[in-house]
């Protein structure tokens, strides 16, 4: 079995937000919910970098540890999914997650939290594959069709990679070799010369 991972190459991401838009459109996620977002560090300064971030499908997921109703599970592909029929919308996964992946649609009453929504690695949920129930709750199930997550598939600079961790790591390793791994060759503008 593969071990599915996302990887975002900070040297390639151009903050076009196409991954965010593609995800929202593909899964028709509710208003106010963003399964993926692009964060820019040092915006407009020397050394500006952007990273696209969503659920990182942790091996030892903190969300699963703190969930009071134990609604998380890890698939054979190493994808962390959750059961919306079990989820009570308490928000503990949101506190525990380092990446801010869990999202909550606002429920009607007093703007309290609805059931949690997060990136599924385009792998749907516990419902049967390609049912309308699954689509409504979790969005498209691309993985069962043999396709990878749409955000990575359509990334114009191939900054965002998704797939088997070994393959992703291999691609990135080759890039590093081409760039030259030395800090002296890696983004000369970043170097703070002088003392």
């Amino acid at each position: 079995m593969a071990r599915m991972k996302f990887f975002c190459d900070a040297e390639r991401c151009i903050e076009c937000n196409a991954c965010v838009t593609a995800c929202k459109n593909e899964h028709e996620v509710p208003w106010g919910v963003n399964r993926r977002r692009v964060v820019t560090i040092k915006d407009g300064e020397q050394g500006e970098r952007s990273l696209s971030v969503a659920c990182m499908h942790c091996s030892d997921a903190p969300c699963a540890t703190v969930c009071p109703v134990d609604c998380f599970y890890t698939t054979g592909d190493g994808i962390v999914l959750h059961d919306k029929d079990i989820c009570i919308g308490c928000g503990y996964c949101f506190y525990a997650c380092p990446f801010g992946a869990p999202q909550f649609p606002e429920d009607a009453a007093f703007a309290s939290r609805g059931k949690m929504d997060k990136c599924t690695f385009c792998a749907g949920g516990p419902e049967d594959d390609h049912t309308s129930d699954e689509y409504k709750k979790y969005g498209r199930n691309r993985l069962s069709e043999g396709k990878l997550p749409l955000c990575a598939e359509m990334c114009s600079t191939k900054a965002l990679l998704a797939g088997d961790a070994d393959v992703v790591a291999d691609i990135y390793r080759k890039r590093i070799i081409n760039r030259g791994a030395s800090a002296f060759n890696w983004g000369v503008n970043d170097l703070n010369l002088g003392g």
Partner: protein
Amino acid sequence: MKFRTLLIVMCLALVPFQAFSQDDKPEPGVFMKDPGAELWRQVRQRDMEGVGISQVRGVDSGVLINARGDQWARFRMTQLSTYGGFAIAGIFAIVILFYVVRGRVPIEGGLSGRMVKRFTDYERVVHWTLAIVFLFLALTGLILLLGRPVLLPLFGKEVFSLMASASKEGHNLFGPLFLVSLIMMLISFARRNIYEKGDLTWLLRGGGLIGEGHASGGFFNMGEKTWYWMVILIGLVISVSGLILVSPSLGQGRVIMELSHIVHTIGALILMTVSVGHMYLGSIGSEGSLEGMKTGYVDINWADAHHDRWGKVCHEQDLIISAEEYARLQGQKPGAGEMETAEQSK
């Protein structure tokens, strides 16, 4: 001998420190930061400065990695729920053990039948409203804190999810009512709970556990006053942190909510633990205590035994009513009898 060793260690500690301070001069040549390392230091928020920006609008959306979340998760899972569970189980064990050893404390000289008014109807409504809301919130809160290790294996995920969902919604809905009844409690009982002369003696006597006979007490004894101020102060802390948690759309960040959750839970666990003792002493632990909150009247012998300074005032001001008068009041006045059934039907 020990002192000499300590001295040597201290001298040793000074040596490298001095060496460092000499080497601290700026080195000649080129100083280069590794751009990769710098980037990831910012991503990990190592120095907790300068978050990024994101086109996705939202609180904390510019934070790539929130390291506090893991600390919160570990604290909740290993300390908060474990020790919290032991505290709740422990206080029940202590109370049961105390009951077995000490039994029900009887009124000296038995019940006289002559009664004295202790609480008005309004005061009893305030007390029981707060008590019922508190018990409901305690139960639903405990289901959320300890349900996964305790209840989930018993009921299975589907059934427990329903219980937890109902607990969460109920907890959120009735939580604000706790603050309202707490403020009512503050207004109607604060004056009589101000500490006064003689309270220290009560404390030194351990509330009557140390030495012979009852410890002297006023209308409320020192233990009751301390419980009262605990309820008010910790209750306010719980209410404020609860309001922060219940409304996630106010714009507060994750770190604020993580801290609020910890404060909320620790405060609630303290109140829950002590409340078990309060409920024990107010019911099966001590004869005649429950009458005061049930009917508003207590036996004069009970007042003399537990609150002798207040009992003395009752004698002096001739506030005692006869058994016949009490029976007439209980039969005629619609308040006392109906109040009970109204509380029960809640």
